[in-house]
């Protein structure tokens, strides 16, 4: 079974939605009196564009499309966990068993 264009679009837009919502939460949580950044607007624009592309790639309602896009993206990211673990294990192997050089303040 292959991956259709609409599913690929859904996954990419889900990833965009996921990151833009996290960025929006971060900007809102870190807002303070010295912050004059209008970076909110860029996250809102990207979130809106990816939301509409998620709606177009499914035949569901808005809320269902949002849910499907974000859950698909999170599950997709979790699918990469074995690759991440493999790379980290190789790095740990190199650090602990193959390298004998210490990293101190002078190096």
């Amino acid at each position, binding site marked *: 079974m292959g991956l259709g264009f609409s599913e690929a679009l859904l996954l*990419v837009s889900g990833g*965009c939605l996921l990151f833009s919502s996290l960025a929006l939460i971060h900007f809102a949580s870190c807002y303070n009196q010295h912050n004059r950044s209008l970076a909110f607007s860029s996250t809102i624009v990207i979130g809106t564009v*990816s939301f509409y592309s998620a709606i177009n790639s499914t035949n569901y309602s808005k809320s269902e499309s949002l*849910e499907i896009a974000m859950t698909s993206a999170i599950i*997709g990211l979790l699918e990469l966990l074995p690759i991440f*673990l493999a790379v*980290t*294990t190789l790095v*740990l192997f190199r*650090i602990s068993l193959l390298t004998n050089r210490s990293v101190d303040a002078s190096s």
Partner: protein
Amino acid sequence: MAIGNSFHRMGPSFERGRFGFPLMLLGLTCLILLPDELTERGIELHESILQSVSIALPFVIGAMIILRNSPTYGESSVPGLVSGWLLVTVSWAVLFYVRNSFSILGITRGVLSILGVFSSLVAIIIGSLLIERTSGLSNESDPLSNEEEVLVRTILERRLGGD
């Protein structure tokens, strides 16, 4: 969890920084223990997150123990290294036990999701840079008062050991 992480990253200069870690713990607890009235997709996601946590938790703890006991970053200790590698092995065993198959389709889905995440990151950085550039410079801050000057000088003298 995201709000807690953002609060925590603000550091001790802001009062809300101290609520970061408790908020993260509260979010994690709600995610694991209180998944009420989930949809079909929600149940699938919840199970996937629990699976990943059961794999990643021993791996992260093992990696931290290995780094602390490796000759590169700390005092080399064989028992520490062995216990760290044991936890990493447990993590791999759980991974093979829970996920008995790795599909190219699953990895393609992950790559597409991460493509979305990175394109969003790049777009937000470009958007923020453009907005910051067009908003212009803010007014210069007022010079330090005499009391502030004395305070800064005292702190510097104390830190640098000057006269």
